[in-house]
C-alpha cells in the first residue's frame, strides 16, 4: 500500500495527477434532455425491468416498484394480531409522531409551537433520538433567498430534476417555505457558513440554476439536527427511544388512531392511542434496492410504507429510487458511504482510469449516476479495486487547485477525516467512487398540509412521495424534512384543537390485508416491517434458536 492505495491503483492515480493541470479549464458539456433520457434508459437501475415487479394487492395494485419494495408490501405482520390486547391503552395522546429524525423532530417542535400541550405529544422512534439520515446529510439545504434567485426558479429546477412528475402543490410549498426555514434555523442558532460580508455561503448543486445550497461545512444535516434535538429536550417533549412502531392502529370509523409500538430491549408491545398520527419514519435504503450498497442509516428499512399501505394510504413514485452518483468504492470498509455532491460543487471532475473526464460533473443525480454506471458496465475505462469493486475517479485535489489550499479542510472536513482514517489524503490523491443507493424518491402521497389519503394520518420527510417526482435534487431533502415536518406539526395542532376523540381501537385493517396477501399464494412467507436489516454471517444465522421466548 502506498499512501492508502495498492500499487495496482497507483498507476492510474499517477495519470490522474499528471493530467490535472491540463484539465483545470476543460469544461464538459452537459447532456441535452434527449441524451439524458438515453443514458437513463440504458443504465439507470430504475429502468431495468429485472429489478422490478408489480405490486400484487391493495390501493396501488399493479404499480411497478423495485422487488424489495414489493417484497415488504407483500408480507405478513411480524406479530399475531390476535395476540394483541388493544383494550389496554398505554399512552393516550393528542399527537403521536413516529420517527425522531429530521422530519419527526421538526414536526414535534411545531406541534408544541402551535399550542399543543407537551404532555399530549409522544415522539416514538426505532433507535435513538437522531438516528436518522438527516444527520448524515452533508452537502446542504436549498433555499432561494438571494436577490438573483426566486422561489419560482427553485420551483423550475425541482420540477425539471423530478422529470416534471412532481406534485406541483408540494413543490410550491417546498420552495416557498425555504427562506422561512432558514430564518427559523438562525433563530435556533444554526451556524450556516457565511462569507466575510455576512452573506450566506451558497453553492451550486446538480441540476440547480442558481447557487442556493446553504451549508454548515460538510456537517449540514448534523448541524441542523443537533439544534432540533437540543430544542426537543429543552421543550421536554415526551420521547420513547428503541420503540419502533410495528403497525398503525385505526378506530372503528376507519381513522388512523395511534400505533402499536415494540420495545426492542424488553420485547414487549405497547398501545398508543392518538387523535393524529404523523408518520416520519424515513426511507428504505437498508433494503438494498437492486443489490446496491447504501449511504443510509441502519434503521432505514421502509417500515413506514408498509404500515401506511396496510392502513390504506396511497403510495406514489416508488418506481424511482435515487442512486447517488458518488458513493465510496474504496477502501472496502467504507464502500457505499456518501461522498457528498459538494465535492463536485466545489470543482472536482469525474474521471476514467486514464485521467480523462467522462461526464459533466453536475448533471441531475440520476443522469450523473447512469453516466458512471455506463462507464463501469459497458466500457473498460473504470478502475478495479483488489476486491473486484469497480469505480471511477473523483478528482478531489482539483478543488484546491481551483480554490486554493485549505479549501478541503474548511469545507469538507468530514470527508477528509473519513478517508484519512484509511491513510488516504484526498487533497493529494483522487478518491474512487461508484453510485450508491441514496434516497427513496417516492412514498406515501401527501397534500401540502401533510395529510395522507387516510384520515388521521399525516406524513413528512423521506416517507412521503410527490415532492421530488422521479428524482430529488441535492439539498431538497434537508429542506423537505423541515418544510413538511413543520407543516405536519401545524396541521396536527389544528386537528388536536378540533378535538375528535378516537373511537375503539382495531387491527381489522391488518386482518383484511392478511386476507389479501393470502390470495397471492406467495412461495416464501415474508414478514414486515423489517425494523432492522440482517447483517449477521450466514454461519451464525444457520444456528439461531429461540430459547427464552419459546419456553414461556
Amino acid at each position: 500500500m502506498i499512501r492508502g492505495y495498492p500499487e495496482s491503483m497507483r498507476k492510474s492515480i499517477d495519470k490522474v495527477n499528471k493530467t490535472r493541470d491540463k484539465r483545470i479549464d476543460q469544461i464538459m458539456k452537459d447532456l441535452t434532455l434527449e441524451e439524458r433520457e438515453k443514458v437513463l434508459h440504458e443504465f439507470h437501475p430504475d429502468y431495468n425491468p429485472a429489478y422490478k415487479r408489480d405490486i400484487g394487492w391493495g390501493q396501488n395494485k399493479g404499480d411497478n416498484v423495485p422487488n424489495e419494495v414489493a417484497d415488504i408490501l407483500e408480507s405478513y405482520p411480524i406479530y399475531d394480531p390476535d395476540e394483541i390486547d388493544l383494550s389496554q391503552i398505554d399512552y393516550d395522546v393528542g399527537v403521536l409522531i413516529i420517527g425522531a429524525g429530521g422530519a419527526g423532530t421538526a414536526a414535534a417542535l411545531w406541534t408544541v409551537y402551535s399550542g399543543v400541550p407537551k404532555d399530549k405529544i409522544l415522539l416514538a422512534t426505532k433507535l435513538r433520538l437522531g438516528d436518522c439520515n438527516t444527520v448524515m446529510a452533508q452537502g446542504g439545504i436549498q433555499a432561494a433567498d438571494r436577490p438573483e434567485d426566486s422561489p419560482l426558479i427553485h420551483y423550475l429546477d425541482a420540477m425539471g430534476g423530478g422529470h416534471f412528475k412532481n406534485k406541483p402543490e408540494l413543490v410550491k410549498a417546498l420552495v416557498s417555505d425555504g427562506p422561512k426555514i432558514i430564518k427559523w434555523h438562525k433563530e435556533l442558532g444554526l451556524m450556516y457558513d457565511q462569507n466575510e460580508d455576512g452573506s450566506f455561503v451558497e453553492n451550486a448543486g446538480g441540476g440547480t440554476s442558481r447557487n442556493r445550497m446553504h451549508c454548515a461545512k460538510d456537517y449540514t444535516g448534523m448541524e441542523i439536527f443537533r439544534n432540533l434535538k437540543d430544542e426537543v429536550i429543552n421543550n421536554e417533549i415526551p420521547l420513547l427511544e428503541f420503540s419502533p412502531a410495528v403497525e398503525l392502529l385505526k378506530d372503528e370509523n376507519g381513522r388512523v388512531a395511534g400505533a402499536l409500538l415494540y420495545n426492542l430491549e424488553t420485547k414487549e408491545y405497547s398501545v398508543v392511542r392518538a387523535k393524529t398520527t404523523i408518520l416520519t419514519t424515513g426511507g428504505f435504503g437498508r433494503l438494498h434496492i437492486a443489490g446496491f450498497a447504501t449511504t443510509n442509516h441502519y434503521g432505514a428499512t421502509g417500515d413506514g410504507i408498509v404500515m401506511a399501505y396496510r392502513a390504506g394510504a396511497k403510495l406514489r413514485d416508488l418506481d424511482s429510487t435515487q442512486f447517488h452518483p458518488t458513493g465510496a468504492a474504496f477502501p472496502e470498509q467504507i464502500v457505499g458511504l456518501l461522498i457528498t455532491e459538494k465535492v463536485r460543487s466545489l470543482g472536482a471532475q469525474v474521471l476514467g482510469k486514464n485521467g480523462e473526464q467522462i461526464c459533466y460533473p453536475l448533471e441531475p443525480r440520476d443522469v450523473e449516476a447512469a453516466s458512471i454506471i455506463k462507464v463501469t458496465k459497458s466500457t473498460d475505462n473504470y478502475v478495479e479495486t483488489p476486491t473486484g469493486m469497480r469505480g471511477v475517479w473523483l478528482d478531489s485535489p482539483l478543488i484546491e487547485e481551483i480554490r486554493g489550499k485549505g479549501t478541503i479542510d474548511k469545507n469538507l472536513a468530514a470527508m477528509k477525516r473519513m478517508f484519512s482514517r484509511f491513510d488516504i489524503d484526498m487533497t493529494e490523491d483522487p478518491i474512487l467512487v461508484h453510485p450508491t443507493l441514496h434516497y427513496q424518491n417516492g412514498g406515501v402521497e401527501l397534500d401540502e398540509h401533510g395529510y395522507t389519503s387516510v384520515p388521521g394520518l399525516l406524513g413528512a420527510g423521506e416517507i412521503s412521495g410527490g415532492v421530488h417526482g422521479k428524482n430529488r435534487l441535492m439539498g431538497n431533502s434537508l429542506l423537505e424534512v423541515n418544510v413538511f415536518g413543520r407543516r405536519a406539526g401545524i396541521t396536527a395542532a389544528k386537528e388536536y384543537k378540533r378535538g375528535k376523540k378516537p373511537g375503539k381501537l382495531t387491527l381489522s385493517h391488518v386482518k383484511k390485508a392478511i386476507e389479501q396477501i393470502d390470495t397471492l399464494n406467495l412461495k416464501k412467507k415474508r414478514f414486515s416491517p423489517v425494523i432492522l436489516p440482517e447483517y449477521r454471517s450466514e454461519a451464525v444465522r444457520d444456528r439461531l434458536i429461540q430459547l427464552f421466548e419459546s419456553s414461556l
Partner: protein
Amino acid sequence: MAKAISMREKKEELDTVTIYIMGQGYKVPSSLTIMKAMEYAGFKLKRGVGCRAGFCGACATVYRKLGDYKIYANLACQTKVEDGMYLTQLPFVPANKAEYNLDEIKPSISTMLRFYPEIARCLSCNACSRVCPQDIQVMDYVQYSLQGQIDKAAELAFDCIQCGLCAIRCPAEIPQYHVATLARRLHGRYHMIAPDTLEQRVKEIEEGKYEKGFEELMSLSEEELKKRYVARDFIDQKKA
C-alpha cells in the same frame, strides 16, 4: 486469554484476526470494521449502531490492544479490526444536558457557568481531546468557554458528533459535548447574524409576491414547462 477455536473456525480460509468482544474471543475477517466484525461474529446490533458512516455518534467503542497499556477509543463503524483487540461498546453515555430558552440567554461566560458550572472544575488534563474520534481539541473549547470566548469554543467544537466519549473520560465530570452545543447555539444565534436579504425574501413570500408566478407556472402543460426549464439561465455557477 486464550481463545477456544471451534471446528468451524478451523476450517475458515479467510484472512482472519482474533478480537475479543466484551472479553469473548471471535475470529473475524481482517478487512472488517469493528461494527461489521461484531455482526459477522453474530451480534444483531441495537445499541452501539446508527448511521454506520461516522456521523451519528452511536458506536463509541473503547479498546485496548494486546501488550499495549494505552486505552483507545474510536467509532466502531470507522475503525478496522486489529488482531488482539479487546473491545466494548458504550451502549449509552449518561450526561446531563441543561435546559434553557435560547431567546433569554446571552453569549457570555456567565451563561456557560450558569448551565454548566462544572466546566470550572477542568483540570486541563486533556483526556477528552485524546479520546475524541473527531480529533477535536475538546479541552481547549472547554477552556474557551471558561474564558467567555464563545465564538472560538463554537468553531473548535463544530465537528462534534456527540458520541460522549469525552464525558466518560473526564475526571472533572464535565459533559463537554453538551457544553459545545450551548456554545455553538449561542454563537450561531447571537454572533452569526443572517443577512438582510433573507428577511426580505421571507417578507416578499408572505406578502404574496410570487403567487401570480406560481399560478402561471402551475397552469403550464408538461411540454410548456419543459421549454421553460431548458431555457433557464444559469447564474454564478463557477464563483460559488
